[in-house]
Protein backbone atom coordinates (compact mmCIF):
# COMPACT_ATOMS: atom_id res chain seq x y z
CA UNK A 1 0.00 0.00 0.00
CA UNK A 2 1.51 3.18 -1.12
CA UNK A 3 0.88 6.62 0.02
CA UNK A 4 1.29 9.74 -2.04
CA UNK A 5 4.16 11.80 -0.76
CA UNK A 6 3.77 15.52 -0.45
CA UNK A 7 5.01 17.53 -3.44
CA UNK A 8 7.80 19.35 -1.59
CA UNK A 9 9.36 16.16 -0.32
CA UNK A 10 9.14 14.68 -3.80
CA UNK A 11 10.79 17.71 -5.35
CA UNK A 12 13.92 17.21 -3.26
CA UNK A 13 14.16 13.44 -3.81
CA UNK A 14 16.59 11.66 -6.12
CA UNK A 15 13.87 10.17 -8.31
CA UNK A 16 12.45 13.55 -9.17
CA UNK A 17 15.87 14.93 -10.14
CA UNK A 18 16.56 11.83 -12.23
CA UNK A 19 13.28 12.24 -14.04
CA UNK A 20 13.98 15.89 -14.76
CA UNK A 21 17.35 14.97 -16.11
CA UNK A 22 15.79 12.26 -18.31
CA UNK A 23 13.27 14.72 -19.68
CA UNK A 24 16.03 17.19 -20.37
CA UNK A 25 14.56 19.90 -18.21
CA UNK A 26 17.66 20.42 -16.13
CA UNK A 27 21.28 19.40 -16.50
CA UNK A 28 22.71 18.79 -13.02
CA UNK A 29 26.17 19.75 -14.15
CA UNK A 30 25.23 23.17 -15.47
CA UNK A 31 26.31 25.81 -13.07
CA UNK A 32 28.43 23.48 -10.94
CA UNK A 33 31.30 22.23 -13.08
CA UNK A 34 32.09 25.19 -15.31
CA UNK A 35 35.26 27.17 -15.04
CA UNK A 36 34.64 30.42 -13.33
CA UNK A 37 36.93 33.40 -13.40
CA UNK A 38 38.64 33.87 -10.07
CA UNK A 39 37.33 36.51 -7.79
CA UNK A 40 39.16 39.78 -8.32
CA UNK A 41 41.96 40.21 -5.86
CA UNK A 42 41.60 42.91 -3.34
CA UNK A 43 44.03 45.69 -3.89
CA UNK A 44 47.05 44.90 -1.71
CA UNK A 45 48.28 47.67 0.41
CA UNK A 46 51.21 49.52 -1.04
CA UNK A 47 53.80 49.35 1.69
CA UNK A 48 56.67 50.74 -0.32
CA UNK A 49 56.87 53.50 -2.83
CA UNK A 50 58.17 52.62 -6.36
CA UNK A 51 61.35 54.53 -5.61
CA UNK A 52 61.91 52.28 -2.59
CA UNK A 53 61.91 49.19 -4.79
CA UNK A 54 64.66 50.64 -6.97
CA UNK A 55 66.66 51.42 -3.88
CA UNK A 56 66.21 47.86 -2.63
CA UNK A 57 67.29 46.49 -6.02
CA UNK A 58 70.43 48.62 -5.93
CA UNK A 59 71.38 47.77 -2.37
CA UNK A 60 70.54 44.08 -2.51
CA UNK A 61 73.70 43.30 -4.48
CA UNK A 62 76.00 45.29 -2.26
CA UNK A 63 77.95 43.24 0.22
CA UNK A 64 78.19 46.07 2.73
CA UNK A 65 74.39 46.16 3.10
CA UNK A 66 73.84 42.42 3.08
CA UNK A 67 75.84 40.23 5.44
CA UNK A 68 74.08 37.06 4.34
CA UNK A 69 75.02 37.62 0.71
CA UNK A 70 78.63 38.13 1.73
CA UNK A 71 78.85 34.83 3.59
CA UNK A 72 76.83 33.08 0.90
CA UNK A 73 79.21 34.11 -1.87
CA UNK A 74 82.21 32.96 0.17
CA UNK A 75 80.61 29.61 1.02
CA UNK A 76 79.50 29.20 -2.58
CA UNK A 77 83.04 29.56 -3.92
CA UNK A 78 84.48 27.21 -1.29
CA UNK A 79 81.82 24.54 -1.84
CA UNK A 80 82.12 24.69 -5.62
CA UNK A 81 85.89 24.24 -5.41
CA UNK A 82 85.39 21.31 -3.04
CA UNK A 83 82.84 19.65 -5.31
CA UNK A 84 85.11 20.08 -8.33
CA UNK A 85 88.04 18.55 -6.49
CA UNK A 86 85.87 15.66 -5.31
CA UNK A 87 84.64 15.02 -8.86
CA UNK A 88 88.19 15.13 -10.22
CA UNK A 89 89.30 12.66 -7.55
CA UNK A 90 86.46 10.27 -8.34
CA UNK A 91 87.14 10.44 -12.07
CA UNK A 92 90.89 9.97 -11.67
CA UNK A 93 90.22 7.03 -9.36
CA UNK A 94 87.95 5.51 -12.00
CA UNK A 95 90.44 6.15 -14.80
CA UNK A 96 93.19 4.36 -12.87
CA UNK A 97 91.16 1.17 -13.14
CA UNK A 98 90.83 1.38 -16.94
CA UNK A 99 92.95 -1.05 -18.94
CA UNK A 100 95.98 0.41 -20.65
CA UNK A 101 95.69 1.43 -24.29
CA UNK A 102 96.53 -1.36 -26.70
CA UNK A 103 96.97 -4.00 -24.06
CA UNK A 104 96.70 -7.60 -25.14
CA UNK A 105 94.31 -8.66 -22.40
CA UNK A 106 91.88 -5.78 -22.83
CA UNK A 107 88.21 -6.76 -22.82
CA UNK A 108 87.70 -5.10 -26.22
CA UNK A 109 90.35 -7.34 -27.69
CA UNK A 110 88.06 -10.29 -28.29
CA UNK A 111 87.15 -12.35 -31.33
CA UNK A 112 85.01 -9.62 -32.96
CA UNK A 113 87.76 -7.13 -33.91
CA UNK A 114 90.03 -10.05 -34.70
CA UNK A 115 87.52 -11.24 -37.29
CA UNK A 116 87.16 -7.69 -38.67
CA UNK A 117 90.90 -7.24 -39.05
CA UNK A 118 91.82 -10.65 -40.40
CA UNK A 119 88.90 -11.40 -42.70
CA UNK A 120 87.37 -7.98 -43.31
CA UNK A 121 89.16 -7.47 -46.62
CA UNK A 122 88.11 -10.83 -48.05
CA UNK A 123 84.52 -10.58 -46.84
CA UNK A 124 83.70 -6.94 -47.62
CA UNK A 125 86.24 -6.05 -50.31
CA UNK A 126 86.95 -2.71 -48.61
CA UNK A 127 90.53 -1.62 -48.03
CA UNK A 128 89.30 0.80 -45.35
CA UNK A 129 88.30 -1.58 -42.58
CA UNK A 130 86.25 1.02 -40.70
CA UNK A 131 84.00 1.59 -43.70
CA UNK A 132 83.75 -2.15 -44.15
CA UNK A 133 82.55 -2.49 -40.58
CA UNK A 134 80.00 0.33 -40.56
CA UNK A 135 78.57 -0.21 -44.04
CA UNK A 136 78.78 -3.97 -44.42
CA UNK A 137 78.82 -5.78 -41.09
CA UNK A 138 76.75 -3.12 -39.37
CA UNK A 139 74.78 -1.66 -42.26
CA UNK A 140 71.58 -2.06 -40.27
CA UNK A 141 73.02 0.32 -37.65
CA UNK A 142 73.92 2.87 -40.29
CA UNK A 143 70.45 2.53 -41.79
CA UNK A 144 69.10 3.66 -38.42
CA UNK A 145 71.42 6.67 -38.45
CA UNK A 146 70.30 7.70 -41.93
CA UNK A 147 66.68 7.29 -40.86
CA UNK A 148 67.36 9.57 -37.91
CA UNK A 149 68.60 12.25 -40.32
CA UNK A 150 65.51 11.76 -42.48
CA UNK A 151 63.14 12.04 -39.53
CA UNK A 152 64.99 15.09 -38.17
CA UNK A 153 64.50 17.01 -41.42
CA UNK A 154 60.87 15.88 -41.54
CA UNK A 155 60.30 17.28 -38.04
CA UNK A 156 61.98 20.58 -38.89
CA UNK A 157 59.86 20.83 -42.03
CA UNK A 158 56.70 20.17 -40.04
CA UNK A 159 57.61 22.82 -37.50
CA UNK A 160 58.93 25.77 -39.50
CA UNK A 161 58.16 25.25 -43.18
CA UNK A 162 55.88 27.85 -44.78
CA UNK A 163 54.32 26.34 -47.87
CA UNK A 164 51.88 29.06 -48.77
CA UNK A 165 53.53 31.58 -51.10
CA UNK A 166 51.26 34.46 -50.07
CA UNK A 167 51.93 33.85 -46.40
CA UNK A 168 55.63 33.74 -47.14
CA UNK A 169 55.40 37.13 -48.83
CA UNK A 170 53.43 38.51 -45.91
CA UNK A 171 56.03 37.33 -43.40
CA UNK A 172 58.82 38.75 -45.61
CA UNK A 173 60.76 35.48 -45.34
CA UNK A 174 62.55 36.02 -48.64
CA UNK A 175 63.62 39.47 -47.59
CA UNK A 176 67.27 39.61 -46.68
CA UNK A 177 66.91 42.62 -44.45
CA UNK A 178 70.30 44.09 -43.64
CA UNK A 179 72.23 41.09 -44.87
CA UNK A 180 74.69 41.91 -47.65
CA UNK A 181 73.29 40.26 -50.76
CA UNK A 182 74.99 39.89 -54.15
CA UNK A 183 78.38 40.72 -52.75
CA UNK A 184 80.86 40.89 -55.60
CA UNK A 185 83.82 39.53 -53.65
CA UNK A 186 81.83 36.58 -52.36
CA UNK A 187 80.38 35.77 -55.79
CA UNK A 188 83.75 35.82 -57.54
CA UNK A 189 85.30 33.54 -54.92
CA UNK A 190 82.29 31.23 -54.78
CA UNK A 191 82.45 30.86 -58.56
CA UNK A 192 85.96 29.44 -58.21
CA UNK A 193 85.58 27.51 -54.96
CA UNK A 194 82.12 25.91 -55.33
CA UNK A 195 82.99 23.44 -58.14
CA UNK A 196 86.14 22.40 -56.26
CA UNK A 197 84.11 21.75 -53.10
CA UNK A 198 81.54 19.68 -54.98
CA UNK A 199 84.27 17.67 -56.72
CA UNK A 200 86.06 17.06 -53.44
CA UNK A 201 82.84 15.87 -51.79
CA UNK A 202 82.14 13.46 -54.63
CA UNK A 203 85.74 12.23 -54.41
CA UNK A 204 85.36 11.55 -50.68
CA UNK A 205 82.09 9.67 -51.21
CA UNK A 206 83.38 7.53 -54.08
CA UNK A 207 86.61 6.70 -52.25
CA UNK A 208 84.86 5.76 -49.03
CA UNK A 209 85.98 2.15 -49.16
CA UNK A 210 89.58 3.00 -50.10
CA UNK A 211 90.55 5.98 -47.94
CA UNK A 212 89.32 7.74 -44.83
CA UNK A 213 85.96 9.40 -45.36
CA UNK A 214 82.76 8.04 -46.76
CA UNK A 215 79.18 9.01 -47.14
CA UNK A 216 78.80 11.08 -44.00
CA UNK A 217 81.86 13.32 -44.40
CA UNK A 218 81.50 13.63 -48.18
CA UNK A 219 77.83 14.51 -47.81
CA UNK A 220 78.73 17.18 -45.27
CA UNK A 221 81.25 18.68 -47.73
CA UNK A 222 78.68 18.76 -50.55
CA UNK A 223 76.09 20.27 -48.19
CA UNK A 224 78.56 23.00 -47.22
CA UNK A 225 79.16 23.71 -50.90
CA UNK A 226 75.41 24.00 -51.48
CA UNK A 227 75.13 26.43 -48.57
CA UNK A 228 77.96 28.56 -49.98
CA UNK A 229 76.28 28.57 -53.40
CA UNK A 230 72.93 29.57 -51.90
CA UNK A 231 74.50 32.28 -49.75
CA UNK A 232 76.43 33.87 -52.60
CA UNK A 233 74.01 33.59 -55.53
CA UNK A 234 70.68 33.68 -53.69
CA UNK A 235 68.08 30.99 -53.31
CA UNK A 236 66.57 31.63 -56.75
CA UNK A 237 69.64 30.21 -58.45
CA UNK A 238 69.72 27.18 -56.16
CA UNK A 239 66.08 26.46 -56.84
CA UNK A 240 66.83 25.95 -60.52
CA UNK A 241 68.38 22.59 -59.72
CA UNK A 242 67.33 21.92 -56.12
CA UNK A 243 63.77 22.86 -55.28
CA UNK A 244 61.32 21.20 -52.95
CA UNK A 245 60.09 18.66 -55.49
CA UNK A 246 63.58 17.44 -56.36
CA UNK A 247 64.51 17.45 -52.69
CA UNK A 248 61.66 15.10 -51.78
CA UNK A 249 62.40 12.79 -54.70
CA UNK A 250 66.15 12.63 -54.00
CA UNK A 251 65.81 12.15 -50.28
CA UNK A 252 63.13 9.47 -50.34
CA UNK A 253 64.86 7.66 -53.21
CA UNK A 254 68.18 7.60 -51.36
CA UNK A 255 66.62 6.20 -48.20
CA UNK A 256 64.58 3.62 -50.12
CA UNK A 257 67.60 2.56 -52.18
CA UNK A 258 69.62 2.07 -49.02
CA UNK A 259 66.82 0.05 -47.48
CA UNK A 260 66.37 -2.14 -50.55
CA UNK A 261 70.10 -2.75 -51.00
CA UNK A 262 70.56 -3.58 -47.34
CA UNK A 263 67.50 -5.86 -47.37
CA UNK A 264 68.72 -7.69 -50.47
CA UNK A 265 72.16 -8.04 -48.96
CA UNK A 266 70.80 -9.38 -45.67
CA UNK A 267 68.69 -11.95 -47.51
CA UNK A 268 71.49 -13.19 -49.72
CA UNK A 269 75.01 -12.08 -48.91
CA UNK A 270 74.75 -12.25 -45.17
CA UNK A 271 73.50 -15.81 -45.50
CA UNK A 272 76.37 -16.77 -47.77
CA UNK A 273 74.25 -16.93 -50.92
CA UNK A 274 75.36 -15.65 -54.32
CA UNK A 275 74.50 -11.93 -54.79
CA UNK A 276 74.77 -9.45 -57.63
CA UNK A 277 77.25 -7.08 -55.95
CA UNK A 278 80.71 -8.29 -56.95
CA UNK A 279 83.47 -7.70 -54.44
CA UNK A 280 85.92 -6.88 -57.24
CA UNK A 281 89.65 -6.31 -56.86
CA UNK A 282 90.47 -4.59 -53.55
CA UNK A 283 91.74 -1.08 -54.26
CA UNK A 284 89.60 -0.39 -57.36
CA UNK A 285 86.93 2.29 -57.33
CA UNK A 286 84.29 -0.20 -58.50
CA UNK A 287 84.78 -2.75 -55.76
CA UNK A 288 83.62 -3.46 -52.27
CA UNK A 289 80.19 -4.94 -53.01
CA UNK A 290 77.35 -2.97 -51.44
CA UNK A 291 79.61 -0.35 -49.85
CA UNK A 292 79.84 1.96 -52.88
CA UNK A 293 76.09 2.24 -53.64
CA UNK A 294 75.29 2.58 -49.94
CA UNK A 295 77.94 5.30 -49.62
CA UNK A 296 76.33 7.23 -52.47
CA UNK A 297 72.90 6.92 -50.82
CA UNK A 298 74.24 8.09 -47.45
CA UNK A 299 76.12 10.97 -49.09
CA UNK A 300 73.04 12.33 -50.89
CA UNK A 301 71.01 11.95 -47.70
CA UNK A 302 73.50 13.89 -45.58
CA UNK A 303 73.99 16.63 -48.20
CA UNK A 304 70.22 17.08 -48.50
CA UNK A 305 69.86 17.20 -44.72
CA UNK A 306 72.51 19.87 -44.20
CA UNK A 307 71.27 22.07 -47.02
CA UNK A 308 67.63 21.63 -45.93
CA UNK A 309 68.45 22.71 -42.37
CA UNK A 310 70.16 25.84 -43.67
CA UNK A 311 67.36 26.71 -46.08
CA UNK A 312 64.57 25.98 -43.61
CA UNK A 313 66.07 28.05 -40.82
CA UNK A 314 67.02 30.78 -43.29
CA UNK A 315 63.75 31.37 -45.11
CA UNK A 316 61.24 28.76 -43.96
CA UNK A 317 61.28 26.78 -47.17
CA UNK A 318 63.51 25.04 -49.67
Amino acid at each position, binding site marked *: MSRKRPQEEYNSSLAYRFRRWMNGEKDPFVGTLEMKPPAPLEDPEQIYEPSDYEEIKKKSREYSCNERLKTYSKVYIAVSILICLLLIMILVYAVSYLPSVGGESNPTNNEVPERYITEGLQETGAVNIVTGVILNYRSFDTFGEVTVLFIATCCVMILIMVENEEKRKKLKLDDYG*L*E*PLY*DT*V*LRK*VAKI*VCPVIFLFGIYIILNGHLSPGGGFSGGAVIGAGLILYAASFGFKSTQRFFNEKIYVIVKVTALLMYGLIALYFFLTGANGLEHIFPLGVPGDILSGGIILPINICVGTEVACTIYAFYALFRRGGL
Partner: protein
Amino acid sequence: MIVLEWIRFLTGAVCIAAGLIFYVIQFIGVFRFQYVLNRMHAAAIGDTLGCGLLLAGTVIFNGFTFPSAKILFIIVFLWMTSPVAAHMVAKLEVLSRVEMEECCPVENPEDIEEDEA
Protein backbone atom coordinates in the same frame (compact mmCIF):
# COMPACT_ATOMS: atom_id res chain seq x y z
CA MET B 1 124.46 17.94 -48.04
CA ILE B 2 124.33 18.19 -44.27
CA VAL B 3 124.51 21.98 -44.59
CA LEU B 4 121.53 21.93 -46.98
CA GLU B 5 119.58 19.78 -44.52
CA TRP B 6 120.36 22.26 -41.78
CA ILE B 7 119.25 25.19 -43.91
CA ARG B 8 116.01 23.40 -44.70
CA PHE B 9 115.40 22.62 -41.06
CA LEU B 10 116.12 26.20 -40.00
CA THR B 11 113.85 27.78 -42.62
CA GLY B 12 111.04 25.39 -41.73
CA ALA B 13 111.50 26.04 -38.01
CA VAL B 14 111.53 29.81 -38.56
CA CYS B 15 108.33 29.56 -40.62
CA ILE B 16 106.52 27.52 -37.98
CA ALA B 17 107.73 29.77 -35.16
CA ALA B 18 106.57 32.86 -37.06
CA GLY B 19 103.18 31.23 -37.63
CA LEU B 20 102.87 30.49 -33.93
CA ILE B 21 103.80 34.07 -33.07
CA PHE B 22 101.08 35.33 -35.42
CA TYR B 23 98.62 32.99 -33.73
CA VAL B 24 99.55 34.41 -30.33
CA ILE B 25 99.06 37.93 -31.69
CA GLN B 26 95.67 36.87 -33.01
CA PHE B 27 94.56 35.50 -29.65
CA ILE B 28 95.71 38.58 -27.77
CA GLY B 29 93.93 40.81 -30.24
CA VAL B 30 90.70 38.82 -30.21
CA PHE B 31 90.50 38.94 -26.43
CA ARG B 32 91.83 42.43 -25.78
CA PHE B 33 90.15 44.56 -28.43
CA GLN B 34 86.73 45.92 -27.58
CA TYR B 35 85.13 46.61 -30.91
CA VAL B 36 84.03 44.00 -33.46
CA LEU B 37 85.91 45.33 -36.46
CA ASN B 38 89.19 45.55 -34.52
CA ARG B 39 88.75 41.96 -33.39
CA MET B 40 87.94 40.90 -36.95
CA HIS B 41 91.22 42.45 -38.06
CA ALA B 42 93.15 40.48 -35.43
CA ALA B 43 91.35 37.22 -36.24
CA ALA B 44 91.99 37.56 -39.97
CA ILE B 45 95.74 37.84 -39.29
CA GLY B 46 95.80 34.43 -37.62
CA ASP B 47 93.69 32.79 -40.28
CA THR B 48 95.80 33.94 -43.20
CA LEU B 49 99.38 34.64 -42.10
CA GLY B 50 99.57 32.29 -39.10
CA CYS B 51 98.00 29.31 -40.78
CA GLY B 52 99.80 29.98 -44.05
CA LEU B 53 103.23 30.18 -42.41
CA LEU B 54 102.60 27.03 -40.34
CA LEU B 55 101.60 25.06 -43.41
CA ALA B 56 104.51 26.50 -45.42
CA GLY B 57 106.85 25.27 -42.67
CA THR B 58 105.41 21.76 -42.95
CA VAL B 59 105.83 21.92 -46.72
CA ILE B 60 109.50 22.81 -46.29
CA PHE B 61 109.97 19.94 -43.84
CA ASN B 62 108.23 17.54 -46.23
CA GLY B 63 110.12 18.42 -49.39
CA PHE B 64 108.74 17.84 -52.87
CA THR B 65 106.21 15.10 -52.24
CA PHE B 66 102.55 14.53 -53.00
CA PRO B 67 101.40 15.47 -49.47
CA SER B 68 103.14 18.85 -49.73
CA ALA B 69 101.22 19.55 -52.94
CA LYS B 70 98.03 18.85 -50.99
CA ILE B 71 99.19 21.23 -48.24
CA LEU B 72 99.83 23.92 -50.88
CA PHE B 73 96.26 23.43 -52.08
CA ILE B 74 95.07 23.88 -48.49
CA ILE B 75 97.02 27.16 -48.26
CA VAL B 76 95.45 28.39 -51.51
CA PHE B 77 91.99 27.40 -50.29
CA LEU B 78 92.48 29.12 -46.93
CA TRP B 79 93.77 32.33 -48.47
CA MET B 80 90.84 32.41 -50.85
CA THR B 81 88.10 31.74 -48.31
CA SER B 82 89.20 33.21 -44.98
CA PRO B 83 89.52 36.88 -46.07
CA VAL B 84 86.15 36.60 -47.81
CA ALA B 85 84.55 35.33 -44.61
CA ALA B 86 86.11 38.20 -42.64
CA HIS B 87 84.92 40.63 -45.31
CA MET B 88 81.35 39.31 -45.09
CA VAL B 89 81.24 39.53 -41.29
CA ALA B 90 82.65 43.05 -41.35
CA LYS B 91 80.16 44.12 -44.03
CA LEU B 92 77.27 42.70 -42.02
CA GLU B 93 78.50 44.53 -38.93
CA VAL B 94 78.76 47.84 -40.80
CA LEU B 95 75.33 47.43 -42.39
CA SER B 96 73.47 46.23 -39.32
CA ARG B 97 74.82 48.41 -36.50
CA VAL B 98 72.48 51.30 -35.89
CA GLU B 99 74.78 53.68 -34.04
CA MET B 100 78.01 53.27 -35.91
CA GLU B 101 79.43 56.59 -34.73
CA GLU B 102 79.45 55.54 -31.08
CA CYS B 103 81.87 52.66 -31.39
CA CYS B 104 83.71 53.79 -34.48
CA PRO B 105 84.06 57.58 -34.27
CA VAL B 106 84.83 59.26 -37.56
CA GLU B 107 86.22 62.78 -37.59
CA ASN B 108 84.79 65.38 -39.85
CA PRO B 109 87.05 66.21 -42.81
CA GLU B 110 86.67 69.90 -42.03
CA ASP B 111 87.94 69.45 -38.46
CA ILE B 112 91.02 67.61 -39.65
CA GLU B 113 91.87 70.43 -42.05
CA GLU B 114 91.53 72.91 -39.25
CA ASP B 115 93.90 70.92 -37.05
CA GLU B 116 96.50 70.79 -39.78
CA ALA B 117 96.21 74.48 -40.44
